[in-house]
């Protein structure tokens, strides 16, 4: 069994500052439009074949829904603010330079990760927001701020502050994870291993902003039967926003997935929902922030490793079933002698089918 781990690169070509955007192909733009408005994103522009959404931290699009003949991941982007690093990325084999970028205002360069996914480096700094006001005021046992005033009842989409991270499944876990470390300077925060073989199958990767703080993970690369986007997560202000968002989406008839709960690795309070195609999207708050000094952690992968408290994980949450498309991709991968092994997938499936809580039976 391969037990090599992705590790921080001594001399990465660039140091990404944050994730910039995700591009998704969708058969049905109308339902995506309605869903993501309810989810809390704002429309930047809409044409017949593309809707660009942004979050409140910036007017730059973080979510691009593009007309396609099937529902799939088209690509994504990182912010690379350093001019020199941006120039170095342009020199890489197969790099495509877009002077005006994807969305017509900032230069970008498109690279392809080892599984062929287009990854853009956007030559801009990431957008930080200093303050978002809380819609509610909390009374604590020792500090009372709301006197003679009930808590207001608020409904509507939550305020999405920013796109936080994306989780990619890959047939070739190691090759891809190491490529992101070497190309964009990402560093592993936590790596998960299969219990028996100790094979690494999932890496939480964060940006290296030196002494400056960054999210515990900006992308996650995990072993999968096919190459796809597993979920994306958006940061909200606080717990109230998370719960209000869930309430709003449910009231609009959209499908929930899993929540509320608190993760173990990364610590976020989370709520997972499903977009009209069934893809997972997450609202989160209170995530861990690390600088470059924090060393990597190693953990066995299990459903227990996913949360410290919360509603029990629904049985269909970790989708390890194979549909026609993913089976086709898996067979293609096996024939091409990619890193993926059936043995690994079986161990992953066994892990995913084990209840994390001994006292609860699904």
């Amino acid at each position: 069994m391969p037990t090599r781990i992705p590790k921080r690169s001594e001399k990465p070509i660039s140091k990404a500052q944050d994730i910039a955007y995700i591009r998704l192909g969708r058969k049905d733009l109308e339902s995506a439009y309605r869903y993501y408005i309810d989810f809390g994103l704002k429309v930047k522009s809409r044409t017949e074949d593309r809707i660009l959404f942004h979050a409140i931290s910036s007017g730059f699009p973080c979510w691009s829904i593009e007309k396609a003949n099937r529902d799939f991941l088209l690509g994504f982007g990182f912010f690379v603010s350093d001019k020199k690093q941006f120039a170095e990325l342009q020199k890489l084999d197969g790099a495509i330079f877009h002077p005006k970028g994807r969305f017509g205002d900032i230069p970008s360069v498109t690279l392809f990760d080892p599984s062929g996914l287009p990854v853009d480096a956007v030559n801009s700094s990431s957008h930080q927001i200093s303050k978002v006001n809380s819609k509610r005021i909390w009374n604590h046992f020792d500090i009372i701020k709301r006197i003679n005033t009930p808590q207001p009842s608020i409904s509507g989409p939550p305020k999405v502050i920013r796109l936080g991270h994306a989780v990619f499944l890959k047939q070739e876990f190691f090759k891809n994870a190491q490529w992101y470390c070497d190309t964009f300077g990402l560093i592993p925060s936590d790596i998960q291993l299969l219990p028996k073989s100790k094979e690494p199958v999932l890496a939480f990767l964060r940006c290296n902003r030196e002494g400056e703080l960054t999210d515990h993970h900006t992308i996650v690369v995990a072993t999968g039967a096919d190459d796809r986007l597993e979920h994306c997560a958006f940061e909200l202000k606080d717990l109230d926003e998370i719960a209000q968002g869930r309430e709003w989406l449910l009231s609009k008839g959209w499908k929930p997935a899993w929540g509320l709960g608190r993760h173990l690795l990364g610590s976020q309070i989370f709520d997972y929902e499903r977009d009209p195609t069934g893809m997972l999207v997450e609202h989160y708050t209170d995530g861990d922030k690390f600088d470059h000094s924090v060393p990597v952690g190693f953990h066995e992968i299990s459903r227990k490793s996913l949360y410290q408290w919360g509603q029990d994980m629904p049985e269909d949450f970790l989708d390890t079933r194979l549909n026609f498309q993913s089976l086709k991709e898996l067979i293609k991968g096996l024939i091409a002698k990619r890193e993926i092994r059936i043995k690994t997938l079986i161990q992953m499936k066994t892990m995913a089918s084990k209840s994390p809580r001994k006292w609860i039976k699904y």
Partner: protein
Amino acid sequence: MAKNYIRYEKNNKIDWGFYKDGSVTPLGFGDLSTKEFLEAIQKNSKTKIETKYTLDRLSILSPITAPCQIVCQGANYRQHLIESGLNPDDKTYNMFFTKSDASLSSPLGNVIKPKHVKLLDYEIELGLVFGKRIDSNSNVTLGNASQFVAAFFMANDISARDIQLPQLQWYKGKSYRTFLPAGPMLAILEPGDFELLENLELTLLVNDEIRQHDTASNLVYKPAETILELSKFCNINPGDILITGTPSGCALKAPGKLIQKIGGLLSEKKKWELFIKGQSKRKEYLQPKDRIRSSIRTADRRIDLGDQILNVVQDLT
């Protein structure tokens, strides 16, 4: 939450420092032994010095100092027992041995491979530091055993298998200089921390390949049980240590039952010759230029014993 301390040298002076969020605040205690440090920190844990250092600006020393007694447990993880052909549920005895304190060395430095040693092996282990004396007057019970433990630390129980096993010399085979890298952190326990031991995850990599990974919940003889047993035959002083055994995944691979039976028919000399020949084929044994990285921490990092980085070098003298 356990507090982390390191022992270091800077400008030819040894001191202890408090470690938090990636930086070290010097305590100005000077060159104290582990025992003296444990006493000093109990009296005065306030730091007056404002300077802070990052770890890479200091030369990090073992937080465990000689002289001290080093008690070790063997075959104490479930999977390691299974791998060695034993049934972990059939616990027959808690296996103890010792190492020389001359083997203690820095957690960020070299492991020296003696000239005559071929089968150099690694063993990541959770270490406990005693804070209270145990003798015939101490009434150790399962309930109070944890009160005798002051701190946790990480150890690597390096072994020369070709001395330890064929010569039946565990003490010698496990005690060459640099055979016990310890630290970097001395995690001084606070109430409630001892119970978190079960959540500690031990990981050891050689050249970026995972060799050992397990959680301390798979310990067969738990620390309380072990300390109780130790108290029956051993006097312990503050600053003495217990290292609790290693998970599966060492380079050493016990020969199968059949081979062992055949071996029993051969002369001792022939048997061990064949053993060394067989083991020498295993590429897992440490070689000069290999790099060992290890860590012990809980997933939520409430207890984090830091990272050891060791380079294997050949002894040329």
